């Protein structure tokens, strides 16, 4: 160091100077912090020691109860929560449900001895990042540690959590750069889309009502959801002919334009009204009612809109609360039938929709009509 505290390059070799400058300007990566929750003390001891040896030398704290874990999360910032399900008083599902609400940025992994499929489904419904059974072999332990590394790495580099499009872009780029052949299935609520890769090129994409580049744009517009990689389909007919870089650039441009339009309230209102009228013209639809705010209702074809709106809100709220109380997760759409029509209820954030469909529709027609309507309404 020179007298003024700055690096005096005349005192250092060029190589040493460059290295020193690099060290000075590169931000120090914070130590990852892991919270391990299990009511088995021996398990906590063993796994804490295992995790401390990980590259990155994470700081590992432990909690024997759900209450203690929640208190520790309130008091300090963690990057990853590893949580058992089977615990007294406050079980893992309760902890995870509270964590999802209060600490949405926290990565979560269930680590349990329970093998039943229903627990896995419920955990993913709550929104955990990963559900693993407690390792019993060296291979499983290795996989567990790799998953921990992956989650910590994802937390460190992904920026805002929950913006699925960013992680989705990463996954797509990874498939392309690795010259992979696969099918990526992406789900967001009732919406599902697929992207086909062949030797690192994107050859096709579909959603319920779109194909090709338009479907690709739609999938990338989803802000959160789940995805899985399926076996390749080499015989798939090609509908996308642009390179993946061009496709991603063009999609990003389109999404930016859409976002700019959506920020204009007048434009949003106009689109909303137009879209409801358009939805009401769909074949098989008898009525549509949408509640957009606590007291705001729009409807087409409903005789007593206010009463139906109130019933819609109360029913959606009621079963949402039931799901929270019994730890069933968030309900998907609800459906029923009268002697004259089918009725479907769905919720998106603080909005709810009630659809009346012709009684004569076959079950498959109902499913397709509802999926299409909800897709359009959600967008």
């Amino acid at each position, binding site marked *: 160091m020179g007298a003024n505290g700055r690096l005096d390059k005349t005192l250092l070799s060029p190589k040493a100077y460059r290295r020193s400058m690099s060290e000075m300007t590169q931000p120090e990566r914070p130590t990852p912090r892991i919270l391990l929750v299990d*009511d088995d003390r021996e398990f906590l001891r063993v796994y804490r020691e295992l995790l401390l040896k990980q590259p990155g030398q994470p700081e590992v704290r432990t909690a024997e109860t759900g209450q203690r874990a929640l208190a520790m999360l309130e008091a300090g910032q963690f990057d990853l929560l590893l949580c058992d*399900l*089977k*615990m*007294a*008083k406050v*079980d*893992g*599902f309760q902890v995870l449900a509270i964590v999802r609400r209060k600490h949405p940025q926290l990565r979560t992994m269930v680590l349990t001895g*329970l093998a*039943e*499929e*229903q*627990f*896995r*489904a*419920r955990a*993913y*419904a709550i929104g955990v990042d990963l559900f693993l059974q407690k390792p019993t072999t060296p291979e499983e332990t290795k996989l567990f540690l790799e998953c921990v590394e992956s989650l910590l790495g994802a937390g460190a580099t992904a920026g805002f959590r929950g913006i699925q499009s960013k992680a989705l872009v990463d996954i797509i780029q990874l498939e392309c750069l690795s010259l992979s052949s696969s099918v990526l299935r992406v789900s967001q609520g009732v919406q599902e889309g697929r992207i086909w890769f062949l030797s690192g090129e994107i050859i096709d994409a579909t959603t319920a009502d779109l194909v090709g580049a338009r479907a690709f744009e739609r999938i990338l517009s989803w802000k959160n959801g789940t995805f899985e990689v399926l076996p390749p389909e080499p015989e798939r007919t090609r509908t996308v002919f642009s390179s993946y870089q061009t496709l991603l650039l063009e999609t990003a441009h389109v999404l930016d334009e859409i976002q700019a339009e959506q920020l204009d309230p007048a434009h949003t209102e106009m689109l909303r009204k137009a879209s409801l009228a358009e939805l009401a013209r769909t074949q098989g639809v008898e009525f549509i009612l949408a509640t957009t705010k606590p007291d705001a209702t729009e409807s087409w074809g409903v*005789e*007593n809109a206010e*009463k*139906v709106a*109130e*019933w819609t809100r*109360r*029913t959606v709220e*009621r*079963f949402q609360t*039931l*799901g929270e*109380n*019994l*730890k*069933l*997760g*968030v*309900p*998907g*759409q*609800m*459906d*029923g*039938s*009268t*002697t004259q029509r089918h*009725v479907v209820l769905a919720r998106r954030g603080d909005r709810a929709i009630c659809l009346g469909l012709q009684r004569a529709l076959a079950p498959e027609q109902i499913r397709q009509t509802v999926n299409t309507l909800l897709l359009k309404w959600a967008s």
Partner: protein
Amino acid sequence: MGLLNIFARRRSRLPLQLPVGTFTVNKLGAITASTLPRSFPLQCAHEIAEAVVATFKEARASRLPLAELNVTYPGLKVAARDLGGGAIIFLLPRTMGQN
């Protein structure tokens, strides 16, 4: 006896196991018959029954007299039939991949 308990190993309580079964309720929400396992807490069955009966009742008041209602959670499907005030309720656990 209470003193001895402090040395007993604390036992973990299993998370709520979702049942498969059927139960009927009258218009007051009281369970009149059930095939649900005893391990499923009665209080939980009552909560489900209350939600279902209230939904049917309010639907009738809104001139949408539902004859049946299905609510699908990630791990459980609740299917109910109106019985003129009461209801018969089916609980069907679901696994991943099911519609």
